[in-house]
């Protein structure tokens, strides 16, 4: 699964970035460049899937691709996909990740759920003391409040949570095996969970692939929970897990000043930041803030020229577009590409 995901990212990046760009996407790097790449190349689902991915693991996969002649490296660190690689990428399934909206927070959700299930399981067995699966005191106090607010001592919470989990999981169009996987990361009285190693060997796949299948399921699960009000308990457990503020904090501050009527130059002075940084913030705004208009910076006519050129030459490379479309700054080009065709 990891290799398939990586192939898809390389395919979408369209040979226009270095190998590392894919690494930054998977790790969820919050830099202007990566954030812009996400929008430009439609990589939202992959963002921040593996915040702890080691460079060694990543490089290992890349060198396998090179060996298989799926792609070749250029001296600049850029790559190009070969026909074989493109064919491979075409055969990969459509994954249902939603990295952009969860960014690793799915693990917080699961830690809460794990501790709740464990507590309820021991409570049903009549045992008050057990070793909590989560040592994180934030998780512990969150779960304590949750259990108290839902009068867990009445003994009805188990049934309610069971129904909600069963309903959500039944709704999801994912394999039974992946639903089973998630259930075996939960534990309870007399029911230890399974380690990644045990699960991987049972499923005959790599540990990382197991973990990715788990993350995918959580993303789909959370999206289902967020969609309706049918799951009050799970909705509560998923509270503040989905990322609402999609802009980086810094871009948010720039946006705030811009709304108050300050110009780019003034914002530079107020925030003591370089012009290029502030410009990156505007590009971020163009990408993720639907109400932001690029009109003050680029005319419609100019934008149209860029879109046409991008289509004609099949590229989003700034350097190429800069040569083809005359009289436009890199900033303007970025804005147009970020806003996308209207």
């Amino acid at each position, binding site marked *: 699964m990891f290799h398939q995901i990586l192939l898809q990212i390389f395919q979408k990046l369209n040979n226009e970035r270095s190998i590392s760009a894919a690494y930054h996407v998977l790790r969820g790097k919050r830099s202007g460049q990566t954030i812009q790449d996400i929008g430009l190349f439609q990589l939202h689902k992959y963002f921040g899937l593996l915040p702890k991915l080691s460079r060694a693991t990543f490089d290992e996969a890349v060198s396998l691709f090179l060996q298989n002649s799926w792609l070749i490296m250029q001296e600049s660190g850029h790559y190009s996909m070969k026909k074989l690689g493109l064919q491979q990428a075409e055969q990969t399934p459509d994954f249902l990740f939603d990295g952009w909206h969860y960014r690793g927070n799915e693990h917080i959700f699961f830690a809460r759920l*794990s501790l709740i*299930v464990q507590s*309820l*399981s021991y409570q*049903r*067995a009549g045992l*008050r*003391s*057990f*070793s*909590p*699966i989560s*040592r994180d*005191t934030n998780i512990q106090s969150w779960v304590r409040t949750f259990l108290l607010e839902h009068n867990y001592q009445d003994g009805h919470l*188990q*049934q309610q*949570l*069971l129904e909600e*989990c*069963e309903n959500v*999981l039944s709704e999801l169009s994912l394999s*039974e095996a992946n*639903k*089973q996987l*998630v*259930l*075996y*990361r*939960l*534990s*309870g*009285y*007399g*029911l*230890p*969970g*399974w*380690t*990644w*190693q*045990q699960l991987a*060997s*049972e499923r005959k796949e790599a540990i990382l692939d197991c973990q990715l299948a788990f993350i995918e399921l959580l993303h789909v699960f959370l999206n289902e929970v967020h969609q309706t009000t049918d799951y009050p308990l799970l909705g509560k457990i998923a509270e503040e897990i989905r990322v609402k503020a999609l802009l980086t904090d810094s871009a948010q501050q720039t946006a705030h000043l811009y709304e108050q009527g300050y110009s780019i130059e003034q914002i530079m002075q107020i925030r003591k930041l370089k012009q290029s940084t502030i410009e990156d913030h505007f590009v971020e705004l163009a990408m993720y803030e639907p109400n932001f208009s690029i009109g003050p910076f680029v005319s419609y006519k100019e934008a149209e020229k860029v879109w046409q050129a991008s289509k004609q030459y099949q590229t989003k490379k700034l350097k190429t577009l800069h040569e083809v479309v005359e009289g436009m700054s890199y900033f303007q080009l970025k804005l147009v590409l970020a806003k996308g065709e209207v």
Partner: protein
Amino acid sequence: MELEQILAKQFGYTAFRPGQKEVIEAILEGKDVIALLPTGMGKSLCYQLPGYILQKPVLIVSPLLSLMQDQVEELKRFGEKRVVALNSFLTISEKRYVLHFLAQFRFIFTSPEMLLQQQVQDKLSQMQLGLIVVDEAHCISQWGFDFRPDYLRIGQWFSQANRPPVLALSATATNKVVNDIRDTLSLDSPFEFLYNVDRSNIHLGRVVFEDREDKAHWIIQHIKETAGPGILYMSSRKRAEQYSEVLIQAGIRAAAYHAGFGAEDRQFIQQQFIDGELDWIVATNAFGMGINKSDIRQVIHETMPANVENYMQEIGRAGRDGHPALAVLLYCDDDVELAKFVVTGDLPTSGHVDRYQELLYQQTQPSQMLKNGELSETAFRVLDYWLQQETMEQVKVRLNHLALEKYRAVNEMQKITQTKDCIRKQLVGYFGQTLLKKPENCCENCGINYDEINKARLKEEKKIEMIPWKSRLKQLLMGF
């Protein structure tokens, strides 16, 4: 109230374990106490119970954050709410809160590092403590294997005239270490309780091999034929994983365990082992702390541990239920070299001393070395401490000395692997005690028949199969 009544009311136990009552009584009489009790024999109760009598907070200084967390959890399980861990995990505002209400807690856990902070010292000096506990007290001694310089730094804090009684706790310590503990903590003619280190229901096997392949063969064969539950201790994470694979292939319900796994996975393995879903744990020495399983029947060491203290602690995890258990120490000639390599791997070298000075000349923080991964955290702590006290040359001599000490400890362990005398007598003697009585099947040299201790392995252990997600969900939440 009688001590027994408090024991039953607060902790739900009906009787004290050996040593607990003596230690507690001495504390309540206001004496300083040194108590050497093996892990798993209820060391913590020696300060937990006085906490309910003294009416003043008990301060527990604990060097290991993970251990501290275990102890806090344990007290919470007993229903204690007035317990807190004052450590570096707290955010600034949490710490401020804890410090403000510090006197309200019954049990305050903290680390030596924290005790060095002025604001913590100030706060504590304004309070009246009922008891100060120094856990893992052997870390005080530079002759100990886990020497923590911060413990030396807090030494003077214990010399205050009006301090409450001090309880120094450790699982294992030699006479030399006990002397260091007494001096460093300025203990006033302390009551000493030394638990009998001999465990007569643990039978001590030893097998010598030509090389590692022979060993591997023996291990697989032995585990295939005899019953667990057991722990197979390995010298490295990698070997633990390799061996667990081989055992699983051979149809044994086994799993690897080491500190490289995530916290959840580690807990899953422990629980599977306790619940009887696993028969063998193939572990590095990270496994065992806080494990409460009384029916472990075998402990096998694939290679010799770094010192006799570790060996005793690790085999001591077997047979806590009092029934016979077998400890087998495997040995081949290369093992000593390997052990020496491993024990000094974690020590700073004279190269590190030079590098430290070089960074100082460049006006760079020496901790940069740590960030670059040039040495381990423990190694840096030792280096940093001594270089603030002594000259480069002195420190180099000292480090050399430390390495020699570690070698010496390995040699002591090697003696156990080679003695022709009674192994039990040697082990007990190492801790300055005298063996009073030899059990049947005492040890390899006195004569031992493994078959009389081990049960034969039942051929068909039920392998745990995965069940469909709906059934599992129901089991978890509804219990069926």
